[in-house]
């Protein structure tokens, strides 16, 4: 067994399943957004703002943000372990990815609840 302490869930199976579950959430969110933008009769600041004041929409969006972060981490971790052979550079890259992911989550929550 190959061990790794930097992968998302330590287990290959867990990472693989999370990648698929988060992909489904992101697809649902994307389809919803496309549908809303295409079929909404009134696309104004007021309607957009009221959409995001809805608690269900906030939960859905937060779920999408968390899914995006988990999905990106698993994907970029795979890319970095494939292509970056030097441990120090790989660890630095992964650290930057992790920091960015954290910033985006906090920033996203701030935007979402600041509407």
């Amino acid at each position, binding site marked *: 067994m190959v061990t790794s302490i930097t992968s998302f869930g330590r287990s*290959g199976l867990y990472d693989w399943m999370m990648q698929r579950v988060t992909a489904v959430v992101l697809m649902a969110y994307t389809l919803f957004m496309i549908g809303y933008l295409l079929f909404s009769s009134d696309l104004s600041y007021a309607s957009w703002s009221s959409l995001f004041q809805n608690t269900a929409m906030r939960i859905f969006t937060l779920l999408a943000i968390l899914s995006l972060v988990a999905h990106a981490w698993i994907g970029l971790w795979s890319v970095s372990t494939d292509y970056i052979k030097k441990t120090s550079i790989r660890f630095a890259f992964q650290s930057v990815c992790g920091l960015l992911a954290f910033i985006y989550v906090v920033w996203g929550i701030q935007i979402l609840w600041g509407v």
Partner: protein
Amino acid sequence: MLVSVYRYNPETDDAPYMQDIHIDIPGGKDIMVLDLLQLLKEKDPSMTFRRSCREGVCGSDGMNMNGKNGLACITALSQVVEKDKLVLRPLPGLPVIRDLVVDMTQFYKQYEKVKPFLINDTPPPAIERLQTPEDRAELDGLYECILCACCSTACPSFWWNPDKFIGPSGLLQAYRFLADTRDTARDERLSELDDPFSVFRCHGIMNCVNVCPKGLNPTKAIGKIRNMLLQRAT
């Protein structure tokens, strides 16, 4: 026709190079790539390659022919030659020992990891462990692998992580024993594979299926291992 062959002799060459050789095929016949190599060796006895059975059973002469891995002995010139030119290179991703001969150590190490033998801790019966024809049929498409390494050396995931990712060939063998009803070590075998690299580095690129000279499907076997892991964990 023009044959461009990868040449490298570590004792005399600083770096590998491609040697262009013009050769006329006797009688204009459609011969196998291995026959062509034999003709080249008659011209230049230093040309080095592995070969043994010359009928696609031993798996010795796996090489890269015009960009695609395959066995030289069962690949006809008409199948690979384009615009009267053939480029022969060793299997990609493994260290080259000389010319078309690669060092297969890494490949065999991964094979060894999957414990490619039957494990059964129950007392052996007097004659043999029997299987139903249906159970035996589960092994079809798995046991035929000849370990030529064409698949694993065509796999980008194996190129990047040959020490961690078992590779299509090893995983096909892993599934061959996971699917065997006579084997009692299924749980231990699965535990060994449940990490982010051994199985899950497979991204379904399917180069392995594309090149397998025996027409096997490692991607499908890997999918079945994944399902086994999933079923065991949920």
